[in-house]
């Protein structure tokens, strides 16, 4: 009974979104089946604990990096408040987690990103408390990790610092939406074609809207990073952001 209900809901949602409709980024309150809501909370929780420890130890070793942590949080705050129009005719917002992931590492951003999501869930009814685990997993865990590894990879390939920062932030942003699509597809698999069919539908909708925003986020992150490179070279070295060649 419950299962067929969800299948019907899934098709209703699909029908709604196929013609030029995009979901806003966060999964709405109550719109994930309870077992999935609990599952994503359970997956995210360890990252929050590790993230808290990571922040505490980094700040203890280098107290002068506190301001940079504040900047990383402020960047997420401002970027995730900006709903920007996109080519698909709907709006979405960037995540802003790429900057902090490069500076402080992905674990630290799992805490910072979750705080912002909590703020939006409680005060703005944007996203939700039951879906916070899932939303935090996509935006505050996966996004930062993608950004971090893209940055490390691009640096290893010897690409310029700015290009590495741009790609990291842009792919972290885009990756967040891909993960959201996976979460929705897992919770609402298609009757025909199952998970893959609904994933390609959700991802198609999300990715298109997000591409220009991901580029914007990449560019903005480069702007901030250039400032840091000019005025906070000491902290960047303490946090080991700059590779030897870039120093």
């Amino acid at each position, binding site marked *: 009974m419950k299962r067929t*209900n969800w299948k*019907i*809901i899934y098709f*209703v*949602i699909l029908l*709604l*979104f196929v013609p*030029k*409709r*995009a*979901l*806003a980024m*966060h999964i*709405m*309150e*109550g*719109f994930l089946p*309870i077992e999935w809501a609990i599952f994503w909370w359970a997956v995210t929780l360890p990252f929050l604990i590790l993230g808290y420890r990571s922040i505490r130890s980094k700040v203890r070793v280098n107290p002068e990096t506190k*301001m940079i942590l*504040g*900047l990383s*949080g*402020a*960047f*997420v*705050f*401002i*970027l*995730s*408040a900006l*709903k920007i*129009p*996109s*080519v698909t*005719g*709907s*709006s*979405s917002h960037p995540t802003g987690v790429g900057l902090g992931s490069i500076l402080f590492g992905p674990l630290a951003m799992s805490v910072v990103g979750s705080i912002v999501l909590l*703020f*939006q*869930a*409680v*005060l*703005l*009814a944007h996203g*939700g*408390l*039951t879906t916070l685990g899932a939303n935090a997993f996509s935006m505050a865990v996966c996004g930062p990790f993608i950004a971090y590894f893209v940055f490390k990879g691009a640096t290893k390939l010897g690409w310029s610092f700015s290009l590495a920062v741009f790609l990291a932030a842009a792919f972290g942003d885009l990756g967040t939406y891909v993960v959201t699509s996976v979460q929705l597809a897992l919770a609402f698999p298609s009757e025909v074609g199952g998970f893959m069919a609904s994933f390609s539908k959700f991802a198609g909708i999300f990715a298109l809207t997000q591409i*220009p*925003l991901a*580029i*914007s986020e990449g*560019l*903005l992150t480069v*702007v*901030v990073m*250039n*400032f840091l490179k000019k*005025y*906070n070279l000491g902290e960047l070295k303490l946090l080991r952001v700059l590779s030897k060649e870039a120093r």
Partner: protein
Amino acid sequence: MKKSLLLLFLVVILATLPLITQQGTEFGGADGEAEEAITKIHPEYKPWFNSIWEPPGAETESLLFALQAAIGAGFIGYFIGVMKQRNKQTKQELAEKSKHVTH
């Protein structure tokens, strides 16, 4: 500085271009609309948990979103100011030190 301005200009273009190319849409965030539409088409469906508090209307919601952006922007402005000042100070100190050495 010039490079930063160019990059910011690119961001503005990316955000305004859709306004020109996509006419006849309100650029809705679609999650609210979708929620409404789902309950309209499928009245027996109830999300199993509701937001504990919702802004009473679009005005209050935009206030809170603006507040969120303002807090972020405020801190970034403060950060830039502090760092520029610090940079100036260390430069001055270095200049004074080198004066003492030469005299």
